[in-house]
């Protein structure tokens, strides 16, 4: 099965341990929150309410505090508004490589010391790079909050890396690309491969993981310039969520972050995509893929518009869950595949980006199945929504699914999805309290608007089709 890619990470998310077919099954226990449905809806009850305190330091650092004492832990996230969309030309993959460098040493913590400080205090640490931000986060026992804030401030003000560490992490990142893209069937499909075809603006259409030659070409001087430009407090958000004393947290934030100077930010490049006028088609051979695969992608309405909220529900109705129209038709009725997946923003959800974005549908199928037949079935389900608004029952289920997902977010022991939303709403909208308006916004969507959005956005001329063709690499056999 294809698994949806997580964000590009500094540290592998401890994947797949144990033996195939022999992993302890704990049902829902180990299930992550589904990314693209982190929104809320009503099943007739009141809206969910997340506590949000929001303020800014004089140096421009935006701070979000969200307190709950459901567990004696606290999650800290530092989000910088620099993703792989605006990394320098000729340095593809640099935003992600740089994320790795943020773990390589600062004025007061040498290599491995940041990680050992967090783990040695009972915490989990990681970072990730996506379209429009790079984030660093820790989940730690509540009593270690001050230590974590000190450490994040330390690397915000004083990264200190060496040539050896740069070379070391170039090697690690190349291994990451190998394991996640080149040495597995369907590696990078479709999250990495489809944007390169569906977009025309270089910022949206380059190789986000980076070409190997560009990764090799990165220098310490590049890293210094990148850090000085983008890793400024006025280009960042700090989120603290969990069990803490608000007054103490505010004091520590001031103590450790306030003295870091603001730095002028360059104008953001234009990442807009021109409106697509004709269908785009692409196919490539995947050396390791044993079966064909197919992805379809459409551009979604601008975030924050009524059409975008409607698209969130459209995604629920068409694609999310086994009750969805596409699952029922492609999996249950036609038997083309065991699973159809996709959504808005495969590296996060419909709120965690800022700029153009694709809605994707993808599946692996058998060689005997004509891709045209699959596309025709997808078109037929879209056509149903275009010709008649969703039923009351469909609307209700879509809202209930999203409401449940929002509760999962709020009740998660890592609070990671919660921090992600608060940070993105602060970073992109200067308004983290928007998290509490997700439910009302979704409830305000009319069935007619969903139908209208389907008619305007989900048309063949505005889509991209990408096929993966099976390659010739035979499965290895013991000699």
């Amino acid at each position, binding site marked *: 099965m294809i698994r949806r890619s997580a964000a590009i990470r500094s540290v592998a998310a*401890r994947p797949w341990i144990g033996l195939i077919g022999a992993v302890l099954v704990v049902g829902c226990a180990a299930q992550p929150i589904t990314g693209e449905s982190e929104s809320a809806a009503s099943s007739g009850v009141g809206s969910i309410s997340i506590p949000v305190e929001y303020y800014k330091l004089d140096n421009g650092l935006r701070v979000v505090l969200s307190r709950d004492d459901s567990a004696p832990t606290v999650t800290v996230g530092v989000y910088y508004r620099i993703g792989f969309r605006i990394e320098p030309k000729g340095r593809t993959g640099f935003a992600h490589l740089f994320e790795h460098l943020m773990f390589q040493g600062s004025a007061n913590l040498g290599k491995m010391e940041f990680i050992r400080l967090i783990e040695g205090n009972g915490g989990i640490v990681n970072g990730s790079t996506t379209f429009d931000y790079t984030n660093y986060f820790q989940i730690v026992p509540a009593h270690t909050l001050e230590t974590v804030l000190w450490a994040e401030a330390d690397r915000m003000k004083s990264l200190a890396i060496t040539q050896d560490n740069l070379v070391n992490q170039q090697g690690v990142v190349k291994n990451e690309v190998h394991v996640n893209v080149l*040495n597995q069937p369907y590696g990078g499909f479709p999250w990495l491969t489809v944007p390169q075809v569906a977009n025309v603006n270089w910022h949206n259409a380059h190789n986000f993981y980076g070409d190997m030659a560009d990764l090799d070409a990165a220098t310490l001087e590049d890293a210094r310039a990148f850090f000085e430009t983008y890793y400024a407090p006025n280009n960042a958000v700090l989120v603290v969520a969990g069990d803490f004393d608000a007054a103490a947290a505010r004091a520590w934030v001031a103590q450790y972050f306030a003295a870091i100077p603001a730095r002028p930010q360059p104008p953001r490049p234009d990442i807009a995509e021109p409106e697509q006028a004709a269908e785009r088609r692409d196919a490539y051979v995947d050396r390791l893929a044993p079966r064909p695969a197919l992805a379809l992608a459409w551009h979604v309405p601008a975030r924050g518009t009524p059409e975008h909220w409607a698209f969130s529900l459209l995604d629920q109705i068409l694609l999310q869950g086994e009750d969805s129209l596409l699952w*029922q038709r492609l999996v249950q009725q036609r038997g083309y595949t065991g699973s159809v997946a996709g959504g808005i923003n495969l590296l996060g959800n419909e709120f965690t980006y800022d700029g153009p974005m694709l809605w994707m549908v993808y599946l692996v199928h058998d060689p005997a199945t004509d891709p045209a037949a699959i596309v025709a079935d997808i078109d037929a389900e879209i056509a149903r929504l275009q010709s008649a608004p969703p039923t009351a029952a469909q609307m209700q289920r879509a809202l209930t699914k999203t409401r449940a997902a929002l509760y999962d977010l709020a009740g998660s022991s890592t609070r990671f999805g919660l921090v992600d939303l608060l940070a993105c709403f602060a970073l992109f909208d200067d308004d983290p309290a928007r998290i509490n308006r997700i439910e009302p916004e979704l409830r305000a969507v009319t069935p007619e608007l969903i139908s209208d959005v389907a008619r305007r956005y989900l048309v063949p001329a505005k889509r991209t089709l990408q096929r993966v063709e099976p390659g010739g690499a035979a499965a290895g056999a013991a000699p």
Partner: protein
Amino acid sequence: MRRFVAVALALAAWAAAAQPREQPPVPGAPRDFRLPGRETLRLDNGLALTFIDYGTVPKVTVLAVVRTGNIDDGESTWLADVTLEMMKEGTATRTAPAIAEAAAGMGGSLNVGAGAEQATVGISVLSEHAVDAAELVADVLRNPAFPAAELPRILSNFERSLAVARSDPQSLAGEALARRVYGDHPFGRAFPQPGQLAGYDIAAVRAFHDRNFGARRTHVYVAGRYDRATLEPALRRAFGDWRGGAAPTELPATPADTLQLAFIDTPGAPQSSIRMAVPVPHPAHALYFPTTIMNSLLGGAFGSRITANIREDKGYSYSPDSSISARRGTALWVLSAEVTTEHTADALAEIYGEIDRLQREAPPAQELDAIKAYRAGLFVISNSSPNGVLGQLAFMDLHGLPPEFLAGWVASVHGVTPPQVSEVAARFIRPERMTVVVAGDLAKVRDAVLRLPQLEGARMP
């Protein structure tokens, strides 16, 4: 205490800092962490019911864990998986689409799965739907319709998954490791034989369900926020008159403990997949705690020695990891690393070197203390949600662990000493007893791997 030196010229510190280094602030006092209350009761037909009252959001999980899985496959590899998938295809009173719509209407989706020794049917829903969720889970468990017309589709889905797994170097390495370690035991058959799946008919699926599902093998866990006064009677109604069925299968596995080496050729691969496995104490064993802490220090944390060495020093690998994989009555230490092709043997040599160093020298107390704090912190994080506790209890029930295992977990971790860590490494993580698998471009890696002294004399099946 806190030597906070204001650093005005932040960027000047880019190169090695000339100033005295600041020390991190010392954390305050740890807060109490108490595990949630829970209660287990047993129905007359043998079914166990556990209520875990926990959480802050109005959601509840109902999860039935059945003591069956691939252990009951016999020669019919993945028959357990096929049976579980077929259970989603409808009951006596509900079609598959009706099940999917009912689940979504409660805010959840029905999850089924077959593991090695546990099969699960469960759903997580908005609390107001707890009773409906319990009834849905019971219906799927007890009354599957097993529509024959759907079986070819389900089998072709498994064929497709198998084809993908067979082209994935990591899956191939895992399959080879399981085969070498567990031999003829069902745990050793991770992949069906070519053509085998197509031979499964609806009678075989029905027979698997008849043989292996029943109240005596089933433990239903409820975790989250729910109204016990309505949910408990509903569960009793839904499960109380289910057949007892057979007792769980006792089929102990005996993992290999002699030196073996298996190669899988993946020509052109930019990386090699390394797997190593050796038997270690299982969770009910007196030496489990020193062993699990030893694992974290050796390879099971980002700050661990193997990660520090082959990733952060050498850059050979992105995500090396070691872990303890438990079965009833036995456990394995498993190391997994995807490494650069040209450094395959180098990476193996470094891993052996770290094992050897840990066996010979007790780790510094400071290093061990950090690892113990890490595991204690993880314990709190992983038990801070209803589903986290549920998973923990299901693990304990499978392995027959007493409540003290959980209650005393943090104290047991803190009781591990540096000499104990070296002792369990020396006693159990023995290269001469390991099964090693290397999947990679053998033309480039085979000879160098075979020159490693630790692999001299390995049986190469």
